[in-house]
């Protein structure tokens, strides 16, 4: 089976997210970048499905030339083809991104056949828009479920497990289908040295797409009010145990 995974390059923040002086972007001067966590798991899910059922995994992203790093990361753990939709400057909004992705998928499929599955992350770590996958699926006219914590394929049907407040829900989508994956569906593997070397040789196909801007416009980023805590140090080492239990009593959690 042929699976496409759409991933996003996002900063990997530590303890604090700083923003640039003009408030337009996260200040990434001292930050590394990563594949957004849900999508890292989507890549792993795709690789596991192909290991079981045969076929190949293609990875796609929309970004500048630096996003090739994330395509190669996916290639180092098992994706064999990589597609970059090159854009310059600021991130595209969700409508524009989904239009570009669905156009790219249509073009790729015209050349190589239909993807049985197109996987997305549940939401991106940085913009948290919760909509690119759904929009792309509707444009492609394919069924879509978000939040997948399990995917099984049998007889042309994807069985999807997801968690809700009520319990565990099962969905069944006929292929071809789109699925939004949640972290926790698996534990992504680390790339092997062989995988890293192979990823350097993967040719990155550039698919230039134009799409119109959508109607949600970012004006400015801001940091939420800092939580200022006058931390009360209860003590140092095991001797603090008594003070801790006093606190538990005071809070009513020790009975």
């Amino acid at each position: 089976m042929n699976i496409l995974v759409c991933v996003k390059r996002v900063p990997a923040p530590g303890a604090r997210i700083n923003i640039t002086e003009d408030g337009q972007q996260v200040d990434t001067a001292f930050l590394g970048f990563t594949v957004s966590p849900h999508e890292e798991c989507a890549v792993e899910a795709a690789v596991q499905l192909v290991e079981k059922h045969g076929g190949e995994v293609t990875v796609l992203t929309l970004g500048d030339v630096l996003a090739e790093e994330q395509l190669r990361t996916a290639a180092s753990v098992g994706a064999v083809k990589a597609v970059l939709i090159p854009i310059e400057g600021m991130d595209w909004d969700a409508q524009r991104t989904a239009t570009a992705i669905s156009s790219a998928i249509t073009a790729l499929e015209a050349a190589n056949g239909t993807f049985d599955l197109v996987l997305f992350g549940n939401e991106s770590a940085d913009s948290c828009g919760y909509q690119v996958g759904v929009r792309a699926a509707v444009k492609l006219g394919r069924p879509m479920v978000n939040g997948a914590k399990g995917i099984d394929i049998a007889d042309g049907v994807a069985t999807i497990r997801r968690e809700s407040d009520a319990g565990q829900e099962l969905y069944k989508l006929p292929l071809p289908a789109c699925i939004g994956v949640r972290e926790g569906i698996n534990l992504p593997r680390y790339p092997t040295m062989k995988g890293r070397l192979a990823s350097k040789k993967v040719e990155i196909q550039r698919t230039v797409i134009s799409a119109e801007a959508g109607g949600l416009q970012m004006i400015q980023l801001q940091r939420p009010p800092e939580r200022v805590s006058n931390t009360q140090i209860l003590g140092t080492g095991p001797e603090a145990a008594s003070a801790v239990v006093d606190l538990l009593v005071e809070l009513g959690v020790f009975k």
Partner: protein
Amino acid sequence: MSVLVVVEHDRGTMTPASLGALTAGRNLAKQINTTMEAVTVGANADALSDAISAYGATTVHQAHHAALVDFGPEAWGESVAQVVRKSAPQVVIGCGTDSGHEVIAQVAARLDLPASMNCIEFDAAFDGSQPLRMTRARWGGSLLENAQLDASIKLVTLANHTVEPVEAPTTANVAVVDVELDPSVMHSFVRDRVERVAGVTLATSPVVVSGGRGVGSAEAFGPLEELAGLLGGIVGCSRAVTNNGWRNHTDQVGQTGTRIAPEIYIACGISGAIQHWVGAMASKNILAINTDREANIVTKAGYAVIGDLHKVVPAISEEIRRRRGQ
């Protein structure tokens, strides 16, 4: 003209997130001098109309179709889209939950409209005619974005827990809408469901004892399990722990794990990176146990013990047993 709230329900039981959305919808409707209306999906939610009018909805649109029994993101999205086309609201507010985002995304895709998720505040100067400005949460709430939604109908979700539900009883008209659902939206209904076993979960436990990279191994979580057990609590962990394979992802507190709000969060050997902090920041009290006085979690916590968790945690359990005379 109206503000339309998409009511979230589980087989006819309204979710708490809906009450916040209804309250926010009523406030915004008042601001732009219009009425707040609501939409329910499926006849099994018809009985909710009284509870919905208690929050000030003047009309409840009941989307009906024989297939609308259980949740299905595409059928729900298409049903709401048809009600939106019919009632032409200025603003549509959905719940800031996973399924709430999913339904609004489906509505947006089907109507080809922009959508702004996880809004925490709307522009107080909005009068219904101009683009809607709002503040929305990014990075799980650790960064905010001022944004502008320019569309004939503004689709948003309200970040969960940002508006306290307040009743404002009125009498609602009921408008049944028989929606037409194409076979293409019928695939994604819930086919089966395994109900959660009743009991304390990570999300609801009043005490969470959590471990981070500093715990060092899967086995070293034993003393944390013991302390949690003594307090009737649950063990959680950070993403570093999950990534090391020490604990299952279901125990992970954070942006991509579980959001918690316990009475006390005991964070052992956790540095407090953004990814983790946004899942724990709603805790009523935080006790950090860490060797590093400058760790992010220590500076943000209300209480801290400076020391090695491998010695401090067993000492706390010992003290609890001593006071209980065990």
